[in-house]
């Protein structure tokens, strides 16, 4: 366990060094600040997605569900779209990015808890119905967003696009700082409830049996997930398969059910994957493609391989 963490920490540092220094020819004062920002964004997003996924998988008792598969990213996009659409371009533009982020996150928090209540309900619905409902809810949200894109005024649309689909290489610095603060708080929260999450793995009845306030713990966990998804989506837009990939790699590496270990290792794996992926994208693939597509591709293949291997047992 200690060796795994050490190795991953070294790998993260190595990948970071690679990203920061690869191909900088002389213009350090120009390249370094920009690359540092990219690095920070990658690490923040990676950590947010990793923690959100591990927590979410425990709550839903599934190793193949992620907030993103269940439509949380699409929900964030929809919330942002609704806000810009209803306030109009001028107001949205006048709003500081920070206020917009806070508003988005607030609405997202409420909406995701509602979604979770509606879909998971009292827990009597089977897991698989829940999954399907989540996937379809995700499509519903992105369809409504797509619908609103068409009917909204073009100026508002531009504001929204700039707001939603920033990439790892062009990021608002204030938002980055806020993202870092919110992330730190949420991650600390996740580690603080790590032992309760361990118990949650017993399922609802088992957890109540040993005296866990199941409802409250689940709601708290889902609130954390909503905040973390908001952070990562606000910074770089939806990243579909990253969480799935890193959470499952982390379980493999730690070989334990303890959340203290899995949360930490998943964060490190995500950081390595994103930073290394971005470095490769910049230098080997010469920016030909987006990190999101790359991750979908690799993550999708890994997911299917896992699914088939798992069904063999």
């Amino acid at each position: 366990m200690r060796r795994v963490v050490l190795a991953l920490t070294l790998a993260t540092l190595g990948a970071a060094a690679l990203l920061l220094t690869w191909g900088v020819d002389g213009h350090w004062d120009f390249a370094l600040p920009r690359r540092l920002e990219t690095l920070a964004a990658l690490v923040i997003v990676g950590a947010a997605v990793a923690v959100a996924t591990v927590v979410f998988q425990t709550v839903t008792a599934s190793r193949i569900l992620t907030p993103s598969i269940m439509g949380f990213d699409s929900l964030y996009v929809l919330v942002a779209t609704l806000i810009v659409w209803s306030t109009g371009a001028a107001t949205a533009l006048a709003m500081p990015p920070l206020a917009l982020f806070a508003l988005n996150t607030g609405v997202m928090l409420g909406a995701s808890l509602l979604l979770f209540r509606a879909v998971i309900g009292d827990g009597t619905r089977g897991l698989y119905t829940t999954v399907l409902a989540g996937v379809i809810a995700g499509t519903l949200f992105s369809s409504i967003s797509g619908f609103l894109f068409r009917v909204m005024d073009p100026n508002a649309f531009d504001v929204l696009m700039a707001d939603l689909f920033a990439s790892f290489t062009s990021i608002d610095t204030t938002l980055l700082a806020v993202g870092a603060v919110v992330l730190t708080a949420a991650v600390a929260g996740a580690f603080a409830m790590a032992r309760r999450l361990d118990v949650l793995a017993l399922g609802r009845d088992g957890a109540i049996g040993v005296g866990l306030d199941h409802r409250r713990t689940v709601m708290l966990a889902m609130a954390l997930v909503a905040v973390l998804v908001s952070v990562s989506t606000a910074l770089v837009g939806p990243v579909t398969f990253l969480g799935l990939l890193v959470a499952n790699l982390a379980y493999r590496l730690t070989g334990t059910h303890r959340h203290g270990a899995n949360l930490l290792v998943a964060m490190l794996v995500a950081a390595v994957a994103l930073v290394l992926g971005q470095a490769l994208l910049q230098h080997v693939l010469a920016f030909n493609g987006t990190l999101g597509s790359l991750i979908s591709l690799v993550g999708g293949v890994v997911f299917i391989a896992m699914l088939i291997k798992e069904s063999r047992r």
Partner: protein
Amino acid sequence: MTSLRGRTAAVTLGVAAAVVALLAVASLAVGAATLDWGAVLTDPEQLRLVTVSRIPRTAAVILAGAAMAVAGLIMQALTRNRYVAPTTAGTIDAAGLGVLVAVLLFAGASVMAKIGIALVFAFAGTALFLLLVERLRLREMIMVPLLGLVLGGIFRATTEMIAYRANLTQTVQVWMNGDFSGVIEGRYETLWLAGAAAAAAYLMAHHLTAAGMGREIATSVGLPYRATLAAGLGVASFATAVVVVTVGAIPFLGLIVPNVVTLLVGDNLRRALPVTALGGAALVLACDLIGRLVIHPYEIPVSSVVGVLGAGVLLALILRKGNRFARA
């Protein structure tokens, strides 16, 4: 029970036909230009409007809707899984990848060539999906479409990366969003092929039903199982490929319509197929009308409308207590 189902089927078929007819008339009447019904036969301008734009559009919508719904029905019967459809089996995304490859490799490819290449991809993608499903021992109903969605995601990511390189991102977005606004005479006729595919499915309905019972039963009644499976998938892939190439992808149609229809008239393909075709046509006609009316004279692509309505309906179906979806 059987006779009751039979009667329900007959009534449903009649109702569906009437609804399609009504919606078709409405579809003929709505458009950016004003149509004066009384003058159609006398004023050549008005007649041209009807024959060049309104009739082709209405026909296109009916054909595409019917074909996609039938494709879904076939796939569900063959895989014995209610969640499998062109959207959830990677078929649509594979077809999209095929269109991109066709455009890149054969710059001035004809529509038929594009359909051909998209068909190859759609068929190969769906076959890959089935192979993977076969290796998936854990046959929980929902794992199957989840696998399909992820496989579709891989196809889409590949498409995106190639499109990004070739600066075609915008173009791909247009294909993947079904839209009938470009339909005029001379640019939709390939869709009749999709209609023909649906008719072919009707002719082989008995074989498909038997194949849907599984390899053992199909073999024991003397049916070449693999060949029937391939033929059924071929028809579904063909319908999907034609629709994607001609008007773009329409999500969910193959999932919702067959599920609602079989809920009403039962699983017998020969009985369910015509109702499914009409149901698909009616749903897309209605969605297309809504798309044309909401921000008239501009349009919202039909795929967005189907996405919102379709996903909404499906979600309600699944979350309703005590239904057959909830038992999965």
